[in-house]
């Protein structure tokens, strides 16, 4: 249910970087530890992006598997179950080295769309030209 707040954060971030250009897609990096439900995020992104430059933009998620490193024995492993102890030396002194990301990696914008009023036209155009 936190996807609504998270989607709002995405839209706000994208708008700041879009410079008023229409956004066609948003590339996100999301760690598994953020417990994000992709379908739910997509749903709320659709709602939050209405009447903004992100309207109709595609949300592309790269899911980053959580990874831990044991500070005691140096072992690195991918976290599957929520067990943050090192299974080699049983210590709890571990570091999360991947899996907490919630990052807008990049966006794709339509350079011809600055201040463009007619959104449906822009959409049609976008549909027949493959992204570079």
């Amino acid at each position: 249910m936190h996807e609504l707040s998270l989607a709002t954060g995405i839209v706000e971030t994208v708008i700041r970087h879009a410079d008023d250009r229409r956004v066609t897609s948003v590339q996100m990096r999301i760690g598994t530890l953020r417990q994000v439900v992709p379908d739910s995020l997509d749903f709320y992104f659709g709602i939050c992006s209405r009447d903004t430059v992100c309207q109709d933009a595609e949300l592309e998620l790269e899911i980053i598997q959580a990874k831990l490193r044991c500070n005691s024995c140096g072992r690195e492993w991918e976290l599957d179950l929520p067990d943050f102890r090192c299974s080699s030396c049983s210590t709890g002194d571990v570091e999360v080295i991947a899996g907490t990301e919630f990052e807008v990696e990049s966006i794709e914008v339509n350079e011809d769309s600055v201040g463009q009023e007619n959104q449906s036209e822009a959409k049609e155009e976008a549909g027949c030209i493959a992204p570079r």
Partner: protein
Amino acid sequence: MHRTKVKVAEDALDANTTIAEANRHDFDHSGVRVINLMSAPGAGKTSLLEATLPGLETRVGVLEGDVQGSMDSDRIAHLHVPVVQLNTDAGFGGECHLDANMVRSALPDLDLDEIDLLVIENVGNLVCPAEFRVGEDARAMICSVTEGEDKPLKYPLMFRACELVVVNKIDLLPHLSYDLEKLRHHLESVNPGAQVIECSARTGEGTEAFAEWLSGVAAREAAAV
């Protein structure tokens, strides 16, 4: 039409973090240490504050976050503790958590020079509050024994975000098939090294440990967000 890829590489919650830092600057400026207290609804956040704040030597204030209503802030006000109610349904869209901006909006109503410790009682929820820093020094949570031992495994984000986990309502243990050992084991898996306090806000058992922890946070030096 030509499309351009724009590199962003920015945390999508950066805007919140920036405001949290501004809050933190104001708290530090007034020498106020801040605790973000979280839990599921009904775990006993307000009851634990009622059980501990009156005996505290530190000058404490409370920021009450609720979707609606002032029941909790009325209870705190009865203790003659300065309290501000923050309802997330008023202009915030009924949010299920407090974010840095909501806390910022409540600061004009709080006299930070009159307190040394601010307890922010977050909206009851084990998911969203863990995502949003509000400018706090310490994060603590309550899990009550009526919630089941498996909660750390189900909500690792919240359990890992907190340095202190208070296990409340232990006076009910004789009536429940709750296994404290199992909870401790799960907690140790998810957040090894987290401090654990077992108590009952109702009977007062163990609450002095929480009061001590509050005083300890109040005595901390300011640190970076």
